């Protein structure tokens, strides 16, 4: 016999704290409780669609952003932990509506199928080329290892990154 569900009045969270963030060169202030992630802020508060939710555990790379220049998952990073750090999403890689050379290379090589993992891959590739402007194919694969792609566009993605490296070393 199932007993009837019991609902208690909810307890309100402790007041969210103001957090100052720099995203794509612009300063923002948001109110963030401990459970709010950087990805929540980027997608929910700032309306940036580029970083994507994939797993919530930092295991797939779909939500990658550059955090002080390093590719990091935004899905499990508390927003407060990003305070005072430089956050760059795929939208902030090139000025205005322009494309970063890595993004252009992805288009040139048609390096996507569904494209859900693409923005995270672009972030990882940009970070690689800043640190290593002329990578070998093996170095590209290693740098993209934290990113998953379920459609199997891997070969094209590696080609695109190598093409971007050859076209415009940063």
């Amino acid at each position: 016999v199932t007993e009837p569900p019991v609902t208690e009045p909810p307890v309100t969270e402790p007041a969210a704290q103001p957090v100052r963030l720099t995203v794509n060169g612009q300063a923002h202030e948001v109110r963030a409780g401990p459970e709010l992630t950087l990805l929540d802020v980027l997608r929910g508060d700032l309306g940036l669609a580029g970083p994507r939710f994939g797993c919530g555990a930092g295991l797939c790379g779909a939500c990658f952003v550059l955090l002080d220049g390093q590719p990091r998952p935004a899905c499990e990073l508390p927003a407060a932990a990003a305070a005072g750090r430089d956050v760059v999403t795929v939208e902030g890689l090139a000025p205005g509506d322009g494309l970063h050379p890595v993004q252009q290379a992805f288009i040139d090589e048609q390096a996507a199928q569904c494209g859900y993992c693409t923005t995270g891959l672009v972030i990882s590739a940009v970070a690689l080329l800043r640190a290593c402007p002329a990578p070998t194919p093996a170095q590209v694969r290693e740098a993209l290892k934290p990113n998953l792609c379920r459609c199997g566009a891997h070969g094209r993605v590696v080609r695109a990154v190598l093409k971007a490296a050859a076209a415009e070393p940063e």
Partner: protein
Amino acid sequence: VTVVPPPSAPEPGLPGDLAATPVLGRWLDFSADGVVTVATGKVEYGQGVWTALAQIAAEELDVRLARVRVAPVSTATSPDEGTTSGSKSIEDSGAALRQACAQARRAVLAAAAERLGADPAALGVRDGEIVTASGGTGLSYWSLGAPGLAMAAGPPAEAKPAGRWSVAGRSAPRIDIPDKVAGRPRFLHDLALPGMLFGRVVRPPAAAAGLQAVGRADLPAGVIDVVTDGSFLGVVAETDAAARVAARRLGQAARWTVRESLPDEDDLRSFLLGEPAETSVIARRRDTAAAARATRTLTAEFSRPFLAHASMAPSCAIAQVQDAAVTVWTHSQGIFALHRALAAGLGLEPRHLVVRHAEGAGAYGHNGADDAALDAVLLARAPACRGRPVRVMWSREDEMSWAPLGSAMLARLSAGLDPGGRIQSWRQDVWSNGFLGRPGTGGEPRLLALAHLAGGQPMSAAPDGAAVPTIGSVRNSLPGYDIPDVEVTRHRLLTMPIRTSSLRSLGAFLNVFAIESFMDELAAAAGADPVAFRLAHLADPRSRRVIEQAAEMAEWSVRRGPDAGLGIGFARYKGTSGYCAAVAEVEAGTEVRLRRLWLAVDVGRVINPDGVINQAEGGAVQSASWVLRERVRFDRAAITSVSWDSYPILRFTEVPDVAVRVVAAPGEPETGAGEVAQGPVAGAIGNAVAAALGVRVRDLPLTRDQIIRAIEAG
């Protein structure tokens, strides 16, 4: 467009989908100046089909590709072309759209000729402008008021011969890729409707579980409502974060009764062979004289575990309930079937329900998209939502465990060789849960949460389709080789402890893995080279050609290093669709390393060559991942492989180099390319592992443990 009722019987000779939706204006319109909007019932999910369909329309209408827009697919406006599955979009929607455009062009030219007092045959179209040999006429698709679009399709118009194509047949860049690379909102997950709320569902902790009590949970600010109905438990909040946190706390507080209902993961063979099953003969070609010539019989069993879609994005949906009107946004592959299933399952008036498609992440069959749509409606109809749209997104964990899975399978093969090394007889028995579990199949809505609602019935075991070797678990169970005496039998399980449905290529993946592995075993028994042995059993020239080309690409006759090996696999998908041969090169140390794959594919006439290559490459990599890594894990109560750690797929450092050659067949009908590689690649890898190790591993995935088990079994 004013719609004229279609005649009671469609014109003979029209493509099937056009005959079903004959009004031309349902397929295209010229209402936006300088733009052709085409409507298809097929949805885009990263396979590139909208680009190829746009190419077909542009070609037939003589407009630049950039002028063509593809309309979002909706049950309110789009032609019902069923589910976007089975690699049939180019075959079905492409043919319908081509014919609709050819007829629209014909109607426009006739109207222009009348206006100009000219002979229609003297008129042509240049990028949408009506022209004569001497130049423009001032008329265009956009200036003539779309004559003919309100009419039903007439007698078939002659489509442009491929020899005159300038847009189709070329590798046009995909129309969806720029948005995806730039990170512009494009996915359903990005859709931010005014006033939108966010919902989450708290799934039971086990496959068979009942909600006893919600318990006491501290809910964060911003929660609008907690919805309970039987064992369905969900929450709606002002933000996604609040909904996520609330769902987690509700999950921790809820109390459930749990029953152990799952089979023993380590003995799927006993499960598959032991459950009650419906047995049907799928194919029978008897030649007793030939069978009697066999002097040696080989028998072997091959198996695969349950496989997950493991899409990059968790399933997502939005629903808005305003009085009787219900609107659903979904990334389902089958919005029309979902429309019917939601209406039936919830008792909604079908005409008050609209299901609209928006892109999700890559889909490889029937995943959780449809179930998420029901979740969204169940939450959005809560009075506290007051008509606001509610977006539901699943967690990664729920995506891995509650979306339908591809069934575990066992195939038992037996073949008789004559003294000359020819196969005279073949028997194949396939045990599996059904693959046709999409919404509405067999007249049942088949949506997850319906079983959890108060008074809900458990979902019945998934159907598997007609007793033919083109569909379901027995897809590709009939070998494509020239064998005189053949019989194939299906054993569809009548219980379904783990929910199954369609996953890319259905049973073809295991059946072709089994057949191609067994062909190598038979070749070895006959003392023959695997490629030569296959060719000796194949008269069909297109089959022979892909095998010969794949072997040539891989330099088949060149021996690899000491721990390396080559293997080949071949199939014609469904036995009726595209051809693919694959050669794999593996290096077998402590782990199997797949170095390279070479594929030759023949999918008939090609609309977008790079699209075909992309699909074949992707299919090859995904198949390799299934073969080498993937296995759904579970205990006796619940799926336990709920993360990318416990359900690993191939990573960038592990994927092989893939080379694809599209074998030209311009005179042959178009077929899909999305699923041709699944089986052949599996066979090729299995055979390459056997060549490298000298051990035949018949149970997937080909992990170290399975290889050691095969070595120990001798």
